[in-house]
Structures are given as structure tokens and as C-alpha cells.
């Protein structure tokens, strides 16, 4: 019986894949009378593709398989970042006078007259948002079976490139219509998996010239689950061992064997925003004293190495040229929210690469960009610029600044670590030169695991920390509250990296030693 049900489901899932329109009509015929039909649709289809395997069978909309690669009206899933929610909801006729359903582009073929004669009481609302593929998402995260054999013949040209945070990068952007509005509202930079019917549709809004854009009529959606790649992996043991190997691998591949710097990189990357009101935010790191890049276009190997380990990594070029020209924060122009580098989802590691910086003038826009990035580093908020008002959006990013000088020319970070090459400097080796560790999968799982750990601090430990602070202040007047906060943050991260649930004295001293090494 159970098996039968399963096969039935599997077959209707494949039916839905083959002809989503018909599947939708079937649901309508069965439940069309329902008060809240969109909820029924959501329920039905999310059940249909409930299992991981069923879900994987849905073709993905991604830069590798852009909208052109899918037939009009195909069922696709779109792992996306919500970029713009400022669009007003759209009205659609949920039931035509012919009795046929509306929404999900079902009404598109019908006569205009039919639409006009339909009962206006059947107008319903759907949320219209703009979503883009996830900026800076690493390749390994993708659960799509590698389709590298057939690369798309035509290069996909996204219709509204200004809506993607990172200019010039291949991506997919689509208008997403969400019919089941009862659930949680999508917020900018949310990561969602949208499953729906793909059409080319008119961009909704106050535009003189109607623009046709890929439009996903959502059947159901769910938040992106970052633990998916590790679902079959066994749980980790011996974290400290993995930690050690990870540090030495990162040091060897990107930091010329400098394990100290690698340890800092690791600690900074696993931090998350803890409390916002009294800011307990992730510490930021500057890697200083890097050699100048061999060529202007060379990018630090650390970017590549980290994107092998972390789900989202972006590189923010902080050269004069890009500071003066690029947009760092989202800005609403003529009621269209243009994206900026920093409009990236929570959990993104941002590598601000200042290497190759030349003398020159920072213009007004550049100054604004520097201010915005510094704000993001210190307060983990990104301003969205709207006419007459600026909205501050919370974010949760990890920042690593890379600079040639002894400190960054633009940005102030909590920690500055000068790199000390132990071997031939390889800071700019190209991606192909990087030796992929056989442990990569374990490293990823380890990082995912420790990032989401919470560490408690016991009564005794807090006593110890206090007396430690008072004692060290007696010796060094220049110590400030900031120092204490930073020390505590680092100690907590250290405990996290060792897979500890509670901070112990040993870890405290270890992290203090790490911190003191910097000061000296």
C-alpha cells in the first residue's frame, strides 16, 4: 500500500514535470472551490516533491541552464536570492468567466474579452519580487548533476543586469510571482528555492516600455538549506585534528605556509552575528603586508581557496577605479532597486581586495562606497537608498580585507594580521594551481558544523575573564573595552573551532595568546 502510494506520487511528480500546466489544472479541477486555492497548490506540489530525490529531478534554473535552455511553461526550480521586494503586489483574475482558473499564467491564452467580462470580485493578489541566482555561490554547493559536458551554446544575457550585485558575472535574474501570499514575506537577500512554471512575461510596474523578462510563477517555495550537501555524511569526530589539517591546507595553498594567518582566516570565517542590540558582531580581519600582485588582474588565491570551503564567497575589488564606479549598496532609481556588491545574503564571506591599489582620487561615489563598506564591517548593516529615506538592512557577512600596506587604506578592521610567508609567496597563484585536498568534503562539513555552534560561558570563566582584564589593564593602560570584547569574541570562536560547547580556561588562554601575538 505504502509502496503503491509512493509510485503514484512518483508518477504524478513526473506528470507535473512533463506538463505543469495540466497538473495545475488538475489540482484546480479537484480543489478549485477552495477558499485559498494558492495554499492548496503550495501544499500539493510541495508534497509532490517532498523528498530530496524527487526535488532533484526538477530541472534547475541557473547560469548553467539559463531561461533559454528551458521550454516556455516548463517546471523549474530556481535557487535564488530575493533581490527586490519593493514591487507592489499584482492583481490577477483568479477565475475567469468561463470557469477557468487564472494566475500562474494560466489565463494568458484567453481572450481579452473573457478577462474583461470576468467577475472583478475574483481579483486576487500575488506578490511580485525580483530574484537572482545566488551571488558568489560556490560551485560545490550545487546539487545539480554536473552537466559540464554540454555547455550552453548561447551565452545567457540577463535582462536586467543592474539587479545583480556583482557586475559582469554570469547569473540568472527572474521576476518571481508568488501566489500563496499567506506565508512568510520574502525579504531582500533571503535565499529561497522557488519551484514554478517558467514563462517570458511582462515586467510589472510603472514602466512606459513594457519589458519582457523571465518570470517564474511559483507553485511552492522553501528556504535554501545549506546542510543539504552534508546530508549523507557521517558526523565528524576529532574536530581539532580536522581543524589542524584545514589550517595547514589553507596556509599552504593560499598564504605561503603562514598558519597563523590561516588560523585567523578560519576563525573570522566561522563567525556569525550573535546579538545585534548590544553589538556582538563577527570580527573583521585585515591581512596586511601582502606583496603586490604580479598583474593587475591577479586575484588572491585565498578567494579560490575559500570558495572551495564556504558556500558563498565574493570578492570586492577595492581599487580606485571600482570604488569610484561601482555601486556597493542597493539604490532605488526611478523606483527600480539597483543592486550593489554588498547586497549579498547572510553568511557570505566578503574578501575586500585592496591589492593593486594605485594613487589617485576618490570621488564622491567612492567615498560613499567606502563609508558603506566600513559600515557593513563595523555594524553589519547595509543601507538601501530610497528617495527621501534610507533603510538600514541587517546583514551577516564575514569580512577579510587584503592589503599591501601595513593596514588597509580605507577600512578599519578589528584584527590586522601581517602575513609572514614561510615558503615561496604564492598569494596570487591561479585557481588551477591549487591542490585540492582529498579532505575537502570533510572541511566543508566541519565549517558548516562549527559555524552553527553556540558556546556557553560558565560562571567561573566569566570571573576569570574579568580578573584577567583587570590584571592586564594594570599593566597596560591602553587596553580598552573594545579589546575585551574582541578577546571574548575570539575566545568564543576558538571554542567553536574546537567543537566545544563551553568555553574553558585552556581555550581562553590559547585565544588570548593568539591575540597577544598580534599585539606584540
Amino acid at each position, binding site marked *: 500500500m505504502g509502496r503503491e502510494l509512493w509510485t503514484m506520487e512518483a508518477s504524478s511528480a513526473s506528470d507535473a514535470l512533463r506538463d505543469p500546466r495540466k497538473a495545475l489544472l488538475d489540482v484546480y479541477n479537484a480543489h478549485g472551490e477552495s477558499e485559498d486555492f494558492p495554499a492548496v497548490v503550495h501544499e500539493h506540489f510541495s508534497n509532490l516533491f517532498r523528498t530530496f530525490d524527487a526535488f532533484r529531478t526538477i530541472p534547475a534554473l541557473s547560469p548553467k541552464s539559463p531561461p533559454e535552455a528551458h521550454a516556455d511553461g516548463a517546471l523549474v526550480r530556481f535557487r535564488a536570492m530575493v533581490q*527586490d*521586494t*519593493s*514591487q*507592489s*503586489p499584482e*492583481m*490577477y483574475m483568479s477565475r475567469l468567466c468561463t470557469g477557468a482558473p487564472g494566475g500562474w499564467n494560466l489565463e*494568458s*491564452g484567453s481572450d*481579452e474579452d473573457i*478577462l*474583461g*467580462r470576468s*467577475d*472583478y*470580485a475574483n*481579483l486576487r*493578489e500575488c506578490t511580485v519580487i525580483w530574484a537572482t541566482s545566488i551571488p558568489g555561490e560556490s560551485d560545490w554547493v550545487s546539487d545539480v548533476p554536473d552537466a559540464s559536458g554540454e555547455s550552453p551554446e548561447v551565452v545567457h544575457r540577463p535582462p536586467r543586469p543592474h539587479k545583480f550585485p556583482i557586475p559582469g558575472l554570469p547569473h540568472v535574474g527572474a521576476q518571481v510571482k508568488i501566489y500563496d501570499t499567506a506565508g512568510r*514575506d520574502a*525579504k*531582500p537577500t533571503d535565499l529561497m528555492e522557488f519551484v514554478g512554471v517558467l514563462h*517570458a*512575461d*511582462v515586467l510589472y510596474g*510603472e514602466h512606459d516600455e*513594457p*519589458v*519582457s523578462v523571465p518570470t517564474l510563477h511559483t507553485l511552492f517555495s522553501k528556504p535554501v538549506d545549506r546542510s543539504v550537501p552534508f546530508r549523507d555524511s557521517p558526523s565528524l569526530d576529532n574536530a581539532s585534528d580536522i581543524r589542524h589539517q584545514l589550517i595547514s591546507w589553507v596556509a599552504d595553498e593560499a598564504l605561503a605556509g603562514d598558519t597563523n594567518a590561516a588560523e585567523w582566516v578560519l576563525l573570522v570565517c566561522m563567525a556569525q552575528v550573535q*546579538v545585534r*542590540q*548590544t553589538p*556582538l558582531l563577527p570580527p573583521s580581519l585585515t591581512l596586511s603586508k601582502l606583496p603586490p600582485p604580479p598583474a593587475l588582474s591577479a586575484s588572491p588565491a585565498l578567494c579560490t581557496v575559500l570558495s572551495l570551503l564556504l558556500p558563498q564567497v565574493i570578492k570586492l575589488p577595492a581599487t580606485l577605479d571600482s570604488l569610484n564606479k561601482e555601486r556597493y549598496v542597493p539604490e532605488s532609481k*526611478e*523606483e527600480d*532597486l539597483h543592486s550593489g556588491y554588498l547586497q549579498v545574503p547572510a553568511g557570505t564571506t566578503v574578501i575586500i581586495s585592496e591589492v593593486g591599489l594605485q594613487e589617485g582620487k576618490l570621488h*564622491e561615489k567612492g*567615498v*560613499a562606497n567606502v*563609508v558603506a563598506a566600513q559600515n557593513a564591517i563595523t555594524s553589519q548593516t547595509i543601507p*538601501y537608498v*530610497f*528617495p*527621501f*529615506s*534610507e*533603510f538600514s*538592512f*541587517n546583514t551577516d557577512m564575514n569580512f577579510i580585507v587584503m592589503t599591501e600596506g601595513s593596514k588597509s587604506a580605507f577600512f578599519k578592521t578589528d584584527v590586522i594580521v601581517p602575513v609572514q610567508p614561510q615558503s615561496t609567496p604564492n598569494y596570487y597563484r591561479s585557481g588551477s594551481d591549487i591542490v585540492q585536498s582529498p579532505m575537502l568534503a570533510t572541511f566543508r562539513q566541519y565549517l558548516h558544523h562549527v559555524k552553527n555552534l553556540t558556546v556557553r*560561558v560558565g560562571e567561573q570563566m*566569566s570571573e576569570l*575573564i*574579568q580578573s584577567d582584564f*583587570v590584571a592586564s*589593564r594594570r599593566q597596560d*593602560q591602553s587596553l580598552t*573595552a*573594545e579589546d575585551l570584547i574582541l578577546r*571574548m569574541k575570539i575566545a*568564543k570562536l576558538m571554542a567553536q573551532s574546537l567543537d566545544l560547547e563551553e568555553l574553558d580556561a585552556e581555550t581562553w588562554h590559547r585565544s588570548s595568546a593568539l591575540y597577544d601575538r598580534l599585539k606584540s
Partner: protein
Amino acid sequence: MSSPPMEFPTSDLDDVNMEEGTTLNNTVEQSMADAPAAQTLFLPTTPSTAGTPSRTQLGGSAVAARRALGMSTPRRTPLFAPGGSSSPLPYPSSSPAKKTPTRRSQNVASSPRSVADSEPLDFPTSPTAIATPPRNRRGDIHSTLAVTPSRRRVKTTKAGASDNLNSDAARLSVPTSSAPQLSAVPLPSEEPDEIRAIWGTTVNLGETMKLFRDFLQGFKPKYRIAHDRENGLRTRALSSAAEGETTLYEVYLRRMRQTGETNLNLDVVNLLAYPPSKKLHAQLTKYPQEVIPAMDQVLKDLMLEVAAIDADTGAEGMVGEEGEAEIADIMAKIYKVRPFGLPAVNMRDLNPGDTDKLVCIKGLVIRATPVIPDMKVAFFRCLTCSHTVQVEIDRGKIDEPSRCPRDVCASVGTMSLVHNRCEFADRQVIRLQETPDAVPDGQTPHTVSLSVYDELVDVSKPGDRLVVSGIFRSVPVRINSRTRTIKSLFKTYLDVVHIRIGSEGRLGTDKSTRSVVTDRIPGIGGVGGVGEEEEEDGGSAKMLKTELEEKLRELSQRPDIYDLLARSLAPSIWAMDDVKKGILLMLFGGTNKSIARGGGGGGPRYRGDINVLLVGDPGTSKSQILKYVHKIAPRGVYTSGKGSSAVGLTAYVTRDPDSKQLVLESGALVLSDGGVCCIDEFDKMSDATRSVLHEVMEQQTVSVAKAGIITTLNARTSILAAANPVGSKYDDKLPITRNIDLPPTLISRFDLLYLVLDKVDEAVDRRLAQHLVALYLEDAPETGGQDILPLDQLSAYITYARSRIQPVITEDASHELVRSYVEMRKAGEDPRSSEKRITATTRQLESMIRLSEAHARMRFSPFVELDDVKEAYRLMREAIRTSAMDPRTGKIDLSLIDTGIGQQQRRVRGDMRKEILNLLDGGNTRGVKWSDAMKKLENQSSIRVDSQEFTAVIQDLEREGMVKVVGERDRRVIRRIEGA
């Protein structure tokens, strides 16, 4: 007073009569205007909940055609059996198709005659069009529902006075070319109104009108009071029992007549409060499209009635000729009821169910188009037979007749638009964005379009916060994209019926700063509704307000109110009590004074705005304070000096994407006119920007001369600025002017200057460490747990004080002011030396006055008393002590701030100058090396020689021609000029 021709029309007049006499008569025109409206009423075009779709157009054009033919109002009676007053109309939406043809055939039947009537070159309707008395067509409600007066009323009122379709008025005002025709033809009154119902409902329009009439005649303030009591609201005490018994709206009507106002603001809560009209409230919100025009009609009828009664009783200004002129005037006017007072909903919550209902939303104007001439009636002429047709706008669209409606002609595609014969109205499209406080956390703001019409055009400007009542529309728009599919979308917007500027939760704008431009904003409210007792708050929240007022008054009586308010300001920030107090007083502000009898109309204006500058070490929560103030301040604008250019702060000229015209967009300073402008990173802004601030802080205006636009904008704003010291850490050893990279002239324009310093104190550190560790343990934010006012109450308190309290300085206080000022100046005297430092200038006196006034306001006191001045003096002293203290002498010296050079410094320079000259005179003629000179002075002097001071002195000497500096940088040599 009655006009003879109005001897009264019976409804029985038949069409023949009409057709013969009225081709050029405006009464017909009027009744014609009624026609389409009547159709919206009668034609079961769409369910009224969902709005009238474009199909009405058919009917509309048919009617227009009929009008062009000189026909009378269509006979409606046959459509529905009389007497079926409130039975639900059993109609399927297919009926219009059936109905229209019948009417058309009527037209056609009469058309030959009308053609005969008209000379081909002179369009038959032209005189009518010119002579039209204003029809009750309002832009916000497209399909005009002008309801002809009912018979019942006609009988009860004086002849003529009661009719809105007054030919008399037309004759007086607009002589037409067709003079002979002017002997008015009686107007056909329609079938009894009992049968009028809003389609698809049981709402009987006749009854609705009767209800509204009763309401206007019967509503008394006592009903509202009773209603509010029932709802547990506090009510305002009436000054006398009689006040509760006045028929409020009759008073308003009279006032409308006297002031010539045509808009009546109607607080819909009053409808609820008056027992007989309760039903009306629901009808109004559900079917505004039909009910509002009906109300307009009733209003006009009543205006006439009241005028007639007054004329009869011989009220002042209504006797004889005067009265008749007045009544004629009323006839010629369009009266509009503007309902408001519905609870405001978030614009995100507007949904399809609200379509064509009356809704109320709040928001921030981000863009407004220039006035757009909006075609109300299109005039078409057949190129073949010169037959003319008028087509009314319907839902923003005009359907061009595809063929000539005359059967004889019936040519296809010959109808061409005659522009100068079309009718236009003022229209403006406003984009309204959600205010930051209404946007759910982590969401981007939504925007809706508003269409405003007629009087409401140009009432609001970008940056204003509005509370808008309007009819929510969903209109299908066909989009013909480049894709294969043709897609119909529904666009939504609001047809605005009422605008109120400023919303609760923020400080009220200071009336005295916004006199010229915005005083007309409450004015559009017309008379009534926004009653005299509640001028700026709108009546909806009236009783709520009284309750709040009581509470606020109670609060103000607390002895510790000053501390309580200061504590409630940015509660998350520790300590900094005096800074908070200073900012608090800034929020209250002093009173603006203008010398009324000054030259040039009004004379100079003295600013009451208090400017505050915070200077301090980084990380001392200055920005937090600024952000907080911005949140509660009126028209508060927050900007960072680092990111903003001069244009960002002032105004700039851009091309409007809609109209492609150059428009002036205001920057932060202009936007915060009448409010508070918070500028962070004050020291980091460019000199150009800063120079603009000079003008703003003294003249309180911004001058713009760009792209051919030269103008001066008002920027009467308090400025709260924060700056970091030079080198980011404050140097105690240096005077403030050396610590802040700001010109002294600008610094001196701040009333209060606070130094927010991060002092090292071990005990504090220990407490801090404990706190931080504890925080870390809890992983939860600090709650404070003190007795503080919530943000909205604080905001309400300040709003109230700012708008209501205008304290006057008492005798005592003025003496104290004088005394304090003298004392402050005296503080500059040093008995040990003859030198005189300047400690207080008149600027400080002015500041003190403003601060005392603000303090009195804070106490809700109508008078500035001794204690106010004392506190102001204390605050000033505190601020001066930190900011104007010369670190080298420990004495207060305001010239430090005013000129940048303190007395002490000046003395040092004098000494140094003497020594340098000595040194040079003693040296050889080749001069003294720069560094040597420094060294020698250093050796002589008991204090360190500041290289900057040294440079300044040398520069002075060079300027005077005493010395000459040759060489560059390290090789500079100072030479004494001989003979000088």
C-alpha cells in the same frame, strides 16, 4: 431672490418639450451631464464592489451623442419599474449589451432634427459647452453622478433656490452667443428617486441622499461626544450646553458660503455618531463612487436652502441684490464633500477586496508630477458630416468612437478629436512611499500611485507625510509587449478625495515656520470637518487626542518631567545627561519671532531653532543619538557629511522621468524645513557643502541657481550635527577650534556645543568589564528597566508642546536673562589682568532666550519663568565650559569660538612676534633659518613653541611687510626687511 425661470419644473416634462427648447440651454447641458452618472447607477455594468469596467463607455458615448444632439436626459423610467425601491436588482452583467442599443436607437431617431438645428460650422453644442454652469463633475470620481434634485425637496424649498441646474446663474455669468435661447426652459426632473439604487445592492440612493441630508441638518456635537464616550474615548468638555446643541454642519455651510469655500471635509466618524446616519458610513466606505456624488448633490442643495432661508430671514449679507448674487454664486459652484477619518491602513494591506472602496493610507510623497491637464470630456467631430460627439472619460480612458454614430453617415474612422473643445481638469500623479516606520522589519518600502485632482493638486510636495483618503482602483491595462502574448494587467492606484499632511507619531511641524507655503494645506480642507477646535489634527483622532492631551498634561505636571524626558531620549545610551537635555530642548525649540511692524512686510524673523553640535571621540554613540532624533523629529532628515555633497544637502535640478521637464528636487536641508536635520560626520563634508550651511543657519534659506532655475528655498531647520575631532581623538591640550576642523564662523552658529569625550577612569572600566562579560553570558540585550516614556509618547509630548505652547517671557525671567548674560560676560574679566576675554556675546544671549523658551515649552507653561532661564543658563554654562575653555588658561573664552583665536593665544602671539623681531634684528642680514629661529625661541620661552603658532606669526609679519621668507620647506630663511 428667486429667479423667475425656475418656476418649477415638473418631472413630467416630456422629451419633445426638451428637444425643442433646449438645444442651447445649459439646463440641458446640466442634465446631460447627469446622464452618464445615472447610467453608472442604473446600468448593471459591473458589480459595484469591483468597479466599473470600460464597458460603460458605450453608454457614455451614447449619452454624449445624445447631448450633442440636443436631446434631453434619457428617460430612465422605463428601465426599471417605479416603486421597486430597494429590491435587489436581479441583474446579470450581460444586460448592458441589451440596454445600450435601445438607447442608441433613441438617439438615432432624434438625430435628424438635431442636425437640422445645428449649423455645420458652428458645432451645435458649442454654446452649451461655453455656457455650462459647472457640472458636478469631480476628478476623483470619474463618472459624475450629479443627481437631479428630487421633487420632494423642490416642493419644500423656495423655487429656484433649490435647483443646482440653475439657468439663471448661467445667464448672469456667461452670456452666450445664442442669447435668444436663454429664456430658460424648465428642467425636467427625473422619475421619483425611490427607484434609484446602487447596482447590485439594496442601497437606495434616494434614501442615502435623504440620510445625508438629515445628517447635515441634524448632526450636533453632542452626538459625537456620546459616541466617543461609548467607545471609551475621553471627550472634550464643551464650553456650554448650547455648544453641544448647535447643528454643526449648518454652521459649516454658512461659513462655506461666507468664505466661498466649496469643499466640505466630512469626518466619517460623525456619520457613525449620528444614530440615523449610521448606515451611511458603511455605504460611503463601500460605494464611494456613487455615494460621494450623491452627497455632493445634497450639499449643494442644502447650500442653496440655507442661503434661501438666510435670505428670507434677512441675515447679514443676504439681503436683496446681495443675497441673490450670493445664491447665483452658489449655483455656479461645484461643491464637494471630502470624507476623511477612516482608520489608516498600511498600503501593503490594500488588496483586491478594497477595490472601489474608500480607504485611508499613510505615506511619504517621493515624487509628484507637474499638473497634468486631464481630459474629462473628449470632443469628436465626424470629418464627413461634421456630426459631433462628446465622450466622457471612464476609468482613465476615453474610447474613441470608431464610427460616426449617425446612422445616416455611419462612416468608419472619421471621428477626429477637436482639442480645444475638449474639457480638461487639473490632475497630478503622486507616488506615495511607505514611511520607514510602517515598513515591516527587513523589507523594502512599497509605493502606490495617487491621482489627485482639482483643489488637491500641488497641495503636497515631495517629502511630505500624508494621510490620504481615496478610492482604491484596479484598472485593467493592456500591455502589448514584444512577446507574442498580449497581456492584461491590473494596475492599482488611489483616486484621492482627501489629503491631510503630517501624521501622528512625529513632531508637528512648527506652524510659524511654515506660514506661506503650507498654510493653504489645512485650507483645502474647506470649512468644516477639520473644525476650528482641532485645526491641524483632523477630527478623526480628535477625541483620542483629547484623551492623549489629558495624559500629556498630567505628565507635564510631574516634577521630574525634565529628567524623565531626557532619560527617555535614546535610553540605550548611557549617561550623557546634559547632552540629552540639550537635544531635548532642541526638539522643543524656541518660539519664532518676527517683528510685525518691521519694514517690508513682516520685518525680520528671528529663528527659534536651536542648533546643537556634538564633538567627540569616535565610538561615543553620537551617531546613535542622531539616528534617534531623526526618528522622532518632524521632517527629520539624517545625512552623513561624508557621503553628501552640496546638492544632497540643498537642492538639485533633475529631469523628471515622467514629464521630461527640469524639476527642482530638494535635498536634506530643504526637506527638513520646519524640522530637524541631523548631519553626521559634520567635519568631513566638503567646503562647498559647508558654505551652504552658513546661509542655512543664519538666513534659514537655501539659494539655488542651476540649469536656469534660480530660486530661494526655505530651510528653517534645526541642525543637529556630530563631528569628530581632528586626528579622531580629542586633544585636551588644544583649544576646541584646533580640535575641530570647522571654521569658527560656523561653530559659533551652534547654540550648544557639546564635547563628548571618552575619559579613562578605572572604576568605570571595571564596571564596564563586568557589564560586558555579563552581557556576553546572557547573550541578551540590556533592557534598562528604568521608568521611561515610550517613543510614541515622547514624540506626542513634543508634538503637542511644539504646536500648542508659545511661551512668553515674563518680567522675572527677562531680568534673570539680563543678569545671567551680564554674569557670563563678567566671567571673562580677570581681576589680575587688564585683559578682557570675551565670554558671552549676543549670540549666546539669543541662544539663552531660545533655550529658556524651549524649557518652558517642555513644562507646558505659557510663560518663561525664572527656573527656565536658570536651567538654560546652566546648560549654556556647561556647554561653554566644555567647549570654550582655553586649555592653556582654564578660562572660558568665547572668542575662541567666534574667531578661532583665544585671548591667551593672542597674547602669546604678540609676545612671539616681539621676540621674532628681536631675533631677526640681532641676526645678520642674510636672515635666520626657519628651524633655527624655532629653536632659539624654544630656548627662550618657558612654554613650548607651537610650530603652527609660529607659522601664523611669521605669516602675519610677512603680510605686514616686516619680514620676508625665502626658500622652500626646510630651507626656509626668514629675513628682516630693512627699514620696515
